[in-house]
């Protein structure tokens, strides 16, 4: 039906021609368009936590035999905007012994990378902001930067206990990055490309007609990779059962207890955008991104699957108790990591037996040619840069 992807591409090409008629050099036009696309995507991403916070409160309420916010607006719909405005007016306290600049920088470091990670994620046909060849690696690299935000928050709060909380939080995130990255290796091996767009489109085929060839349906390797990636993502976003910040505040104050007002709201916002990003990655890698029957536009398929995975994240939060700190680390190093490594071996075994004669690695000639069928102005960008 109303497939928005191609419409957007047309709109952007007209805008580019319009800019060139205004006398901008082709490069400036392309950069302008990219800027426009980025603001559009970031505005969508900023709207999502508003919805997610409301969804979490409602879903957790129904799980707990209560109603959740009902008073602000019909069925409590205006609850999140009301909270945001309230947080806006809250006084912004910086602890006395703290390093003022670092206190602020920590929030930026924790929140900003998450938005950058959305660039290579394909929302639907013709939608990705930039068709990045090193898609998934770029996402892991940039999301690694938010660990620094937690360390800076711990150190920037001035008191010894939030520093300890920061250290533990960062240690958890760093150690869960490894199984998370390793669990993606089978997917990359299978579709022999890091580019999220290629991975998503490669999962569009069907097994004998009806069964979608999503990676999760591959027996054995698909399910293991999916589970390891999901668990590691829950740990990366610091949510129960892996939430060090709350667990720390039980005893030693967590790293974001010294924050108030808008800064605290940003930590909160970053967590929800990070949850949405992780579920978007799960959809792209394991559930075939925007692949779905024709009666729904592709981006709606993508959004539906992602929200399903987000529901999983919310569900985990309200059913599981919290793991103890050292058990949590032990779980990562002695269970998740070996499982991910075994899964890689299984995948290679699967690929070997699938194509016994031909060398597993595609020969030199078979390197996919560089022209992507993503948004055409990508190629334009590289040519323009060289002029």
């Amino acid at each position: 039906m109303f497939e928005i992807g191609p419409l957007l591409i047309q709109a952007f090409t007209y805008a580019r021609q319009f800019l060139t008629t205004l006398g901008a050099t082709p490069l400036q036009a392309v950069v302008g368009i990219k800027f426009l696309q980025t603001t559009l995507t970031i505005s969508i991403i900023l709207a999502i936590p508003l919805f997610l916070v409301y969804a979490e409160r409602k879903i957790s309420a129904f799980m707990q035999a209560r109603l959740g916010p009902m008073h602000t607006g019909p069925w409590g719909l205006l609850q999140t905007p009301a909270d945001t405005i309230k947080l806006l007016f809250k006084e912004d306290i910086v602890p006395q012994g703290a390093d003022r600049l670092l206190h602020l920088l920590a929030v930026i470091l924790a929140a900003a990378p998450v938005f950058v990670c959305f660039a290579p994620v394909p929302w639907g046909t013709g939608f990705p902001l930039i068709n990045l060849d090193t898609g998934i690696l770029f996402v892991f690299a940039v999301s690694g930067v938010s660990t620094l935000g937690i360390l800076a928050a711990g150190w920037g709060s001035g008191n010894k206990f939030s520093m300890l909380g920061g250290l533990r939080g960062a240690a958890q995130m760093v150690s869960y990055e490894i199984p998370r990255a390793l669990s993606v290796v089978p997917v990359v091996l299978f579709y022999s490309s890091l580019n999220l767009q290629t991975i998503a489109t490669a999962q569009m085929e069907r097994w004998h007609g009806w069964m979608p060839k999503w990676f999760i349906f591959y027996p054995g390797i698909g399910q293991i990779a999916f589970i390891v990636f999901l668990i590691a993502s829950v740990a990366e976003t610091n949510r129960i059962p892996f939430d060090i910040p709350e667990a720390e505040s039980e005893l030693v104050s967590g790293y974001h207890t010294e924050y108030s007002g808008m800064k605290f709201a940003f930590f909160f916002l970053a967590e929800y955008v990070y949850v949405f990003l992780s579920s978007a990655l799960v959809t792209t890698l394991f559930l075939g991104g925007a692949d779905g029957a024709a009666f729904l536009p592709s981006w709606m398929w993508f959004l539906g699957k992602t929200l399903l995975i987000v529901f999983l994240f919310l569900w985990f939060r309200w059913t599981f108790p919290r793991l103890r700190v050292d058990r949590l680390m032990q779980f990562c190093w002695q269970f998740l990591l070996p499982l991910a490594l075994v899964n890689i071996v299984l995948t290679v075994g699967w690929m070997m037996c699938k194509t016994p004669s031909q060398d597993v690695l595609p020969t030199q000639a078979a390197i996919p040619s560089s022209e992507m069928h993503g948004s055409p102005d990508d190629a334009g960008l590289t040519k323009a840069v060289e002029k």
Partner: protein
Amino acid sequence: MTLPLGIFYALSALMIGFSLVVVTSRNLFRGAMCLTASMGFVAAFFALLGGDFLAASQLLIYVGGVMVLILFVVMFVQTPDLFRARQTSVRWIPALLLAGGVGALFIRAFCHIESPTELPVLQPTSTALGHLLLGDMAVPFEVISLVLLAALVGALVFGLERES
């Protein structure tokens, strides 16, 4: 002054600024943070010069891994007096002269290097890099894993607290 050159000058000015702060700042944590920023700009330069896989791995390994490690150690070691004491040893003037001399020598040598003007279009490098690493550079690739193993064991040996 085309756009790419403008970008180049802006990035390099920022990077040099952050690196100077790393070397001169009194507060170790601020130094470590500025080192992270300068490494981020190095990743930007890799991207500018066509190494997209390289930029991502620089961010992943350096900024996500090594810098977190350095920040960990800085937080362990933050003794109050370390902050206030003069950060540079008494012989900072000869060091400045030596560094300046070496820098000037390099720059004079590099200024007149002519480089080809028309260059091929930037290609995505991850697949080609993969073939290179596992094809011609297979031996160094394996040796590196031994180096990493040795580093891991070494770090554990030094790091573990032994009641000697």
